[in-house]
């Protein structure tokens, strides 16, 4: 039987692992023999996709050339192609749930839909499709590594880990990503639980374990009871939008404090600052003080960051995480003193402050003997071997992180399955009609802990029926809400009188429908079969259109920065490109785009320079007054 692989589809980094001679091992998928694949996806204007280290190089940023000049490079977003990082933050979100700061960072297609859609060139991609590219890169990388080791093995069946606190929509979106990558997702496993499996494999431990998982984008805390190979989750809590990314953002704000907002949000400037900030943060896990620098055009920002200052910035985020820990311990009906071992997972637990605070909370030195970057993937491989039946009597009993219920009269949420209930679990609820001859009953399923439906997250809506016309209250329909071992809801309805199964057409409030996924799969195939030549021509034409459009706009706004001779050269190339654009000579279009780029570069740099000077002047005027 085909092996099942374990995948940690992380916000920052992704890994793939498998059992090898009874022990879980990560597979080196990176070019440099690294197991970590940065979860960064670059999509070129022509639709070409790159994942990992190489994609990072295409992120818009400022770079200092050999001659000392600073230039802006990378895919600037939208029509110029884009580089998407931390796509996991967008999994399962609706368009209306996108934060304003995200809108400055990426270009989105219409934000009214039930799914976030990134607009990149002519392509519109959902987070599941982008995650599918990461999964595909892991699959290809692993198959290549296996071939190099003399094994002709395909990666087809996988376990994928998700944050324990992921809701139904986020889990579904992850499963969809697997399907879009052509993988069979045998099981979704919660990341902290996976980590506990990795630790539990060699030491047949018994006792209560707390797993503290603080990564780039998400935070999870899970409390488990381990006994004779049974890993039973007692409670879990977390925040799917809390992690090292948030700390980086605060450092960036401090670093760019003197710049005006318009410049701070410039994708080149912001990304350069983000890289500098993250690197400084990581260095401060080892040293007490570090310089931080960002080179802008003609100016550079040079500051010093101390560990003390960083810890003050990180404190509010850590406090939020620790509050979640308290709640989880209480939900497990334990006190911190009942916890026998604390496991640290995730890159952000390398911060000394995090270690100290976790140790203080549980009165115990936390365990971190397994690389916190790898432990989740290793645990996923262990769970994969449990699923293959090669792990003896080891068994994982996980819980649902959020309560599930339905909207009742007056907009109140009636809880049917409480959070921290062991899964799989099901509950049956009887429904009837409210008025005579009613033929349908509308049901609104919710997830969350708040009292009112409007404060919970809408999960799905469905209509029961058609129901035979009868007096009010006579029909009896039993609806079974079943949460499977992946933490995903399934709904079934049965007429209690006739015993007949009702078909339930559940419309998810967020996320993709089956039809949409089918269409995406078909599109992917179509795209592959479309004539390559034609596709290239279209993408070159798009390039031309973009650069011409952008130049027109810049000349409108900053025309004063161009001298007559320069303008003449530009106009001449523009004219030739306009003509070539309607033809079919792809090479000619490419050559002219290149040429136009060249003649306009000094102009572009002057615009950037002027903008920064203006901003800094404004700042100093403000300071004087």
């Amino acid at each position, binding site marked *: *039987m085909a092996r*099942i692989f374990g995948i940690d589809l992380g916000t920052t980094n992704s890994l793939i692992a498998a059992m090898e001679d009874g022990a879980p091992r990560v597979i080196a998928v990176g070019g440099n023999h690294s197991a970590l694949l940065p979860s960064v996806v670059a999509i070129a204007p022509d639709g070409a996709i790159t994942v990992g280290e190489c994609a990072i190089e295409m992120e818009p940023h400022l770079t200092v050339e050999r001659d000392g000049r600073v230039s802006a490079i990378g895919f600037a977003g939208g029509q110029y192609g884009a580089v998407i990082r931390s796509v996991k933050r967008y999994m399962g979100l609706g368009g209306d749930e996108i934060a304003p700061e995200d809108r400055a960072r990426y270009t989105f297609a219409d934000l009214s839909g039930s799914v976030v859609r990134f607009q990149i060139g002519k392509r519109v991609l959902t987070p599941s499709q982008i995650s599918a590219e990461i999964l595909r890169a892991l699959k290809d990388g692993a198959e290549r590594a296996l071939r190099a080791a003399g094994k002709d093995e395909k990666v087809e069946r996988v376990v994928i880990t998700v944050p324990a606190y992921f809701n139904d929509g986020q889990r579904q979106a992850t499963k969809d990503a697997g399907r879009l990558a052509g993988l069979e997702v*045998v*099981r979704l496993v919660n990341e902290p639980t996976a980590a506990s499996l990795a630790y539990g494999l060699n030491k047949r431990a018994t006792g209560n374990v707390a797993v503290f998982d603080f990564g780039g984008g998400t935070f999870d805390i899970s409390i488990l009871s381990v*006994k*004779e190979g*049974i890993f039973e989750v007692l409670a879990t809590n977390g925040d799917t939008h809390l992690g090292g990314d948030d700390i980086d953002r605060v450092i960036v704000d401090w670093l760019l404090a003197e710049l005006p907002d318009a410049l701070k949000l410039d994708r080149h400037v912001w990304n350069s600052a983000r890289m500098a900030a993250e690197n400084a943060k990581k260095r401060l896990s080892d040293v007490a003080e570090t310089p931080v620098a960002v080179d802008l055009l003609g100016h550079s920002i040079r500051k010093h960051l101390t560990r003390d200052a960083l810890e003050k910035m990180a404190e509010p985020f850590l406090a939020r995480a620790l509050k979640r820990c308290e709640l989880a311990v209480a939900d497990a009906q334990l006190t911190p003193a009942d916890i026998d071992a604390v496991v640290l997972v995730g890159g952000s637990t390398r911060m000394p402050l995090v270690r100290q605070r976790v140790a203080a909370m549980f009165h115990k030195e936390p365990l971190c003997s397994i690389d916190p970057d790898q432990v989740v993937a290793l645990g996923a491989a262990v*769970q994969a071997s*449990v*699923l*293959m*039946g090669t792990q003896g*009597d080891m*068994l*994982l*009993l996980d819980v649902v992180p959020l309560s599930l219920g339905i909207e009742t009269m007056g907009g109140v949420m009636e809880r049917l399955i409480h959070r921290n*209930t*062991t*899964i*799989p*679990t*099901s*509950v049956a609820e009887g429904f009837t009609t409210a008025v005579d001859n009613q033929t349908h009953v509308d049901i609104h399923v919710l997830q969350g802990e708040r*009292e009112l439906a409007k404060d919970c997250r809408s999960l799905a809506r469905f209509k029961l029926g058609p129901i035979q016309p009868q007096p009010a209250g006579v029909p009896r329909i039993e609806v079974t809400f*079943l*949460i*499977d*071992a992946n933490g995903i809801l399934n709904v079934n309805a049965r007429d209690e009188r006739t015993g007949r199964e009702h078909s339930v057409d559940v419309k998810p409030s967020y996320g993709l429908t089956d039809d949409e996924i089918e269409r995406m799969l078909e599109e992917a195939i179509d795209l592959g079969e479309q004539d390559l030549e034609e596709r290239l021509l279209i993408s070159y034409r798009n390039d031309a259109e973009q650069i011409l459009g952008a130049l027109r706009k810049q000349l409108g706004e900053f025309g004063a920065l161009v001298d007559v001779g320069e303008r003449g050269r530009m106009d001449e190339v523009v004219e030739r490109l306009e003509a070539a654009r309607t033809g079919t000579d792809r090479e000619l279009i490419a050559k002219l785009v290149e040429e136009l780029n060249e003649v306009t570069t000094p102009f572009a740099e002057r615009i950037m320079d002027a903008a920064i000077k203006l901003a800094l002047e404004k700042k100093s005027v403000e300071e004087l007054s």
Partner: protein
Amino acid sequence: MIECPSCGRRQQPLLICADCGSPLAATLDCFAALGMPRKLTIDLGALERRYHELSRMIHPDRFASSVARVRDASLRATATLTRSYRTLRDPVARGLYWLELNGEKLAENNKRVPPELAELVFEVQEQLAGMHDAPADSDAACELAAQVVARRSQLQATMDASRAELERNFVKWDQRPDEKMLTLELKAILSSIAYLRTLIRDVDRALENSKAA
């Protein structure tokens, strides 16, 4: 009777096929699902061992590569098992379930105040109203909040006492399960626990709101 999706044998409803050991999606009461005697007193250690043992046999992780029919049976059987375990593990949930099995039920939304709690409930409500009306951040509001916190511990202590009484009585009731009087007693204690639980939740919510304000 139920048919095993693996070997096809028809048999009494259980969670595991008597012939081939495959999971069966039978509809069972909580005691039967776990093979425990239908009693209010339960050996929690034995209950957990039984739960783990059955989970090892029927959990979907054991059937990841089986045909859809068997996977589905495993999913449903395990859902029944975990729900049953949760119900029996908690004395209050177990008591309520036992009443239900005996055709009794607590009043749907439990509006009636149990007589022995009347005075306490009145005082709590008075305090909550006071806290709600006091101007935010005023000394009076702080004072009232402190009183409500003290009241909460009192409510919790009353609830703990009721739970302890419930478990003490389980033994007695198990010996004479058919006496109507005993059912009434059980019902009375469970109502007051349910009532206290709602009250504590209201208090927590009020405290939360006053903190947010």
